[in-house]
């Protein structure tokens, strides 16, 4: 479930509030959104994908709370990882990711 909204990174754009399919966040004027209904988080990672400043972290555990530490997550390169994989990060393009993947598939010759 959603475990981190980094106050230092958040620019209060409220994209996460808008896109979350389960309506987990509540907007706070001039501040970072709050996680108002954590139990409704379905762990789909889409808020991470849409966050333009990599301020969010969704832990893999869908049914239990876990403790996370922002500095550690940054050091591990885990903030913004989904966005980078999707090709949604600045300076990357989804098609480059897809072409890269397709080349790999061709080499392996495996049906996917």
């Amino acid at each position, binding site marked *: 479930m959603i475990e981190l909204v980094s106050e230092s990174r958040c620019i209060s754009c409220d994209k996460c*509030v*808008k*896109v*979350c*399919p*389960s*309506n987990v966040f509540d907007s706070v004027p001039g501040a970072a959104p709050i996680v108002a*209904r954590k139990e*409704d988080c*379905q*762990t*789909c*990672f*889409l808020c991470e*994908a*849409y966050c333009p400043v990599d301020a969010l972290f969704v*832990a*893999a*555990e*869908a*049914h239990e709370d876990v403790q996370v530490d922002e500095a550690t997550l940054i050091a591990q390169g*885990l903030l913004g*990882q*989904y966005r980078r*994989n*999707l*090709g*949604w990060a600045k300076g990357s393009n*989804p*098609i480059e*990711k*897809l*072409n*890269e*993947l*397709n080349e*790999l*598939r*061709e*080499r*392996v010759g*495996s049906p*996917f």
Partner: protein
Amino acid sequence: MPDPREDRLQLQADVLVIGGGPAAAWAAWAAASKGQRTVLVDKGYMGASGACAASGNSLLNPPPKDREAILKARHRTGQYLGDLRWMDRIFEATWRSLPLVEAWGYQFPQVDGESARESFWGPEYLKVLRKALLKAGVQVLDHSPALQLLLDADGAVAGAQGLQRQAGGRAWQVKAKAVVLAAGGAAWLSKVLGCNTNTGDALLMAAEAGGELLGMEFSSQYAISSALNATVTRGVPFAWASYSDEAGRPLTGKDGGRFGTPELAAALLKGPVYAQLDKASHQVRQVIESSHFITFYPLEKAGIDPYGQRFPVTLVAEGTVRGTGGIRLTDDECATGIPGLYAAGDSAQRVLLGGASSAGGGPSAAWCIASGQWAGGGAAEYARSLSEASFDRPVRQAGRAGLTAEAGHAGSFDPDDVVRRLQAEVLPYDKNLFRHEEGLKASIRAVDGLWQELKGVPAVNGHRGVLRAREAAALTATARWMFRSALERRESRGMHIRTDFPATDPAQRVHLISGGLDQPWVRREPVLDAEPAGVGR
């Protein structure tokens, strides 16, 4: 607090589409491109909600020359309950539609200068579809779940009502000439990736209007996932897995064969099961990590090396989403038999595509493209046959269970508690994956009891509770049709496993139609095409 009804949002549309995944998007696009004023309402954000948005999806899109052989193979996998004519038109429509997706801005990988249209990245695909809808003039209402349909005096569908959960629960009403239900299937709020918005709402709304369901026994699809993050059910990486029990003893299928879902479920009923992707070569690793990074993402977050370490696995219920049961369709335009009501995507039955077996991601992606356009086109044609005066029709609200207490029913219910007790019937492998008469009857008693409770007063605070109460009713209704259909099919076929009737019975190559609210019913309907040679082992 002001009464939310006071400032109700009121709109008129030729076509109202309920849902926000690919099928809903294609339906809205088809209606709008026929010049119809189209409104789309989604429970979440159109672009991020539903099964497709949350991951990579394969897309079955065989070139026309290969189509026949592939369809025949699928028909066999579906245990001959599918429909070859429908399959052919689904893949023809998909083949013809995909260039449009590219024109809207989706970029498929390029192979030798040609687009390889064989997969979608869900978030990107939905983003492109959203843009196309807005460009086509579709009015999109996000975070605006539909709670019930509106019917006219003749029983025709005349619109819907719901609430806007990011506007303080403000009520909305859209009067419409035709409605398309494309709000996904029912995945029991199991948190299976992206599917918690799929709570069977469309199935309940269709039944309340007098619509019928088909194939509800085929709703027991379970998929493997790491137990540490039991949300991501993308099975491809597990093709390179070996399995073991708590003591490290290897687990295999019968006679060393495939360790599939039933074998895994049986092992899980005895104790923990572990997987290790030790059969993946270096190159395979690169491919599965790129194409299914969503599977590895949680493992990485949990600090697990899936190639070198054993990790616990489980099975997650995917309900009707990867099952094939849903709203019965009555013609080629995805009509439902109720005037003005159409169904598409996972809300509709997909037995005609997948038969008794899961239609899976690839065929389902094609189904959404095809059924969405047919339903949207059919709704547009129907809307054209009505005059503007139809917006003045007197309408009544069709919704009951979970919305308003029945007269004389004094009890109250907590929707979250109803969902928990429902999950205790629909999720366990020994109840819903391995089915038998006695267990099914017990589950029917349990879910019928929940249905009675849902006639009481929802004990809820705020609009989250209002929505959850209605979701609890939709899930419970879905479970009632599912368990009754499962009891009626006294054989094993595809995903439907009866431990008391383990064989497939050629005499039961029939469809099971179900419906009804207070008195649910199931009836048999013959499969029309001739039985293919070699069936009935």
